[in-house]
């Protein structure tokens, strides 16, 4: 046991949880606004690709990141256009984006690299060098604290941003007029529009935010975590995020803990397979954790509801 739970292991939980956390926050805001964006997985894939390509072309991780966000936002807005204006089913629209994120990106990367590099590449891993990696940050003072320093210092700047965004998401949803509008549109669009809130505008803003957050996740994947885009590299993180959102009861803080649980499960899987256990046995761990935690969550929530109801009944 001691050999598993090392400082490296705990460090890796945060590293692994970061992209899930970005996508989870996107899911949280989307659900609050009544815009179920199940296309987060696809958006992350597309952002990851364009982020890494742009970083290579401009030789700047920052411009790469920026483009990843813009592309994420753009894809999300396009989803919005289909779902809100053309009235397609948003679940189907999200499914389409996920399929494009898988097959379409591979097609694109081959076509684009054929044109720019003269040979068609199936991934951008050869293009992203160490200098294009999103920088890490050794937190002064904290990094010198034994154990704790090794766990929480030295992460990508995006990791710190992700955790900061948990708080910002909460502020946005519960302390700003925009957040109030998002929640009201998500819960009762008629009520919102009856007092002059533009439901369409709020929905577009909501889905754009989910796109930007997924864009962060995508950029982190291809420009920090994996150093380059490759086929299906997001590997279900967009879907796990939806589960984390549900587990966290749709609240930013709760969903963050859920994302960390998934990070823990994946880190555990990696560690165990590194110890020589057949990786086929280890690979399902995160998904088993997903199912188990969703069950636990559902049971706990049902019990809470029962308690609340009986409390209410007593008051009557």
């Amino acid at each position: 046991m001691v050999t598993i739970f090392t400082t490296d292991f705990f460090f890796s939980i945060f590293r692994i949880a970061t992209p899930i956390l970005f996508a989870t926050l996107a899911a949280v805001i989307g659900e609050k606004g009544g815009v179920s964006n199940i296309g987060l997985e696809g958006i992350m894939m597309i952002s990851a690709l364009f982020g890494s390509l742009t970083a290579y072309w401009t030789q700047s991780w920052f411009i790469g990141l920026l483009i990843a966000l813009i592309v994420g936002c753009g894809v999300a807005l396009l989803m919005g256009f289909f779902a809100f204006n053309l009235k397609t089913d948003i679940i189907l629209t999200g499914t389409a984006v996920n399929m494009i994120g898988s097959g379409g990106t591979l097609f694109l990367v081959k076509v684009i690299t054929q044109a720019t590099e003269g040979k068609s590449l199936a991934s951008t891993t050869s293009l992203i060098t160490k200098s294009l990696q999103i920088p890490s940050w050794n937190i002064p003072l904290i990094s010198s604290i034994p154990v704790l320093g090794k766990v929480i210092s030295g992460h990508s700047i995006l990791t710190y941003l992700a955790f900061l965004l948990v708080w910002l998401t909460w502020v946005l949803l519960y302390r700003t007029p925009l957040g109030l509008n998002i929640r009201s549109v998500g819960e009762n669009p008629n009520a919102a529009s009856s007092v002059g809130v533009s439901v369409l505008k709020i929905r577009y803003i909501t889905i754009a935010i989910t796109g930007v957050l997924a864009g962060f996740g995508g950029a982190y994947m291809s420009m920090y975590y994996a150093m380059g885009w490759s086929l299906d590299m997001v590997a279900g993180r967009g879907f796990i995020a939806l589960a984390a959102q549900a587990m966290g009861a749709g609240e930013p803080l709760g969903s963050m803990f859920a994302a960390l649980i998934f990070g823990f499960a994946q880190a555990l899987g990696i560690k165990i397979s590194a110890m020589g256990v057949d990786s086929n046995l280890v690979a399902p761990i995160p998904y088993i954790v997903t199912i188990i935690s969703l069950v636990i969550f559902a049971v706990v929530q049902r019990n809470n509801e029962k308690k609340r109801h009986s409390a209410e009944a007593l008051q009557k």
Partner: protein
Amino acid sequence: MSEEYVIQMNGITKVYPNGVVANQDVEFNVRKGEIHALMGENGAGKSTLMKMLFGLEQPTSGEIKVNGEVVNLSSPTVAISKGIGMVHQHFMLVPSLTVAENMVLGMVPTTSGFLIDGKKAVEITEEYSKKFNLPVDANARVADIPVGMKQKVEILKALVRGAKILILDEPTAVLTTQETTELFHELKNLKNQGYTLIFISHKLNEIMEITDRMTILRGGRSMGVYNTSEVDEEKISRLMVGRDVVLTVEKEKAAPSDTVLKVRDLEYVNEWGKKMLNKVSFNVRKGEILGIAGVEGNGQKELVDMLFGFNTPNAGTIEVNGEQTLGMNQHQLRERHVSLVPEDRMLYGIAADGSIEENILSDRCADPRFNKGILFDMNAIHEESDRLIKDYTVLCKSRDQKVGMLSGGNIQKVVVAREFSNSPQLIIADQPTRGIDVGATEFIRKKLVELSRSGIAVLLVSADLNEVMELSDSLIIMCGGEISAYFEDTSELSDEMMGRYMLGIAHQTPEEIRRVCHE
């Protein structure tokens, strides 16, 4: 004299894209500071007219003046800016937000332009609440407050947006008697402060009580404007339905015979541990209508659920024609000739997207009369559904029309046509005329009496006092999950007496109540 009108709708015609003429050349003028009733049956065009006044729909032709000025009410936002507010029948509130947050939605006060000023929102709410004497709990979540308070929030929401003219769309439909009294008091209060109120309703007694004048619509046309003090209920119903509605249903004295439904000692504790039914016992006999009166929420809903197999009691027995039916599903009950006119017609009564034909015969698709081999006999089905549509005077374009597109009264007629035509021996009618127009109400009530006189046992559950008292041959009153009184003859009953039993002030002795078991 036009200056005295705050609202003038002149020559309003509304034709929907599908060709339905909802309003035709309607005149609707409201004086400043009055309570003006807009009356009419379901489908008479009241809602459409008010939607145009609140900017939700635009008239095909005609003009609208507010305070003498011609306006183009292109959206609710414009209507609000002209001082028009609407209290919708289905509340436009966000349940998870607090009362204060709902109040300020769309006009949120901020600190430094970025963060919500929650304190200010509460202040505003409390200020208006006090000013108009409409007490609400500013910090409570809307999901947790009672219906009556939700309505107050809706009214305050309109007032805080500067409304001087309030449209109230059937505001009492969701309220208890006590809440209604309270609301009327508040409305009169608003009137005294110079506000103008438009009151949509089809409850005659309420109109008589609270309004100054009324405009009556029938079939999309205006039937004139009247001073409330100068018309009586008979005249209003004549104008609304174009004939004299006999609001008292004629019926011969019942001659009950064998017991059909026998309920004994039914007990039910709901999932939150509250006892909803306590030792409920009664019989319903052939040829009689047994009414169940009571304030809603006193076990009536639970009782009906038990009787029609939607729920299981903790103790007790239910027999239909001597056979134990507890634990049977709806299909088995129907095979034993039990029919249900459910309280919630949209959820349990019909499939809104299905056609009239599909809905009107949905309980008998396995009937050999309508099948040829493995396929439906469409000719027989068409014939039977056309017959039912005609017999039950369902107003529709054809049997293929979607049920959900009909007016409430006609939807209920479809439900009733199905439930009454499958040779029932026991009919459970739960709020059979709730929220439907006078014509359909009269039709359904007459039909119930007619069926009972032909030897069918009818159990009538209704929160409408008039209805239970008019239709029932004998009556039980439920209070707190118990039968608090049984009256063998309803003709001797007064409202006050019933009220005492309904509110639990009076309670008959177990022996008196036991008489309903006819043992």
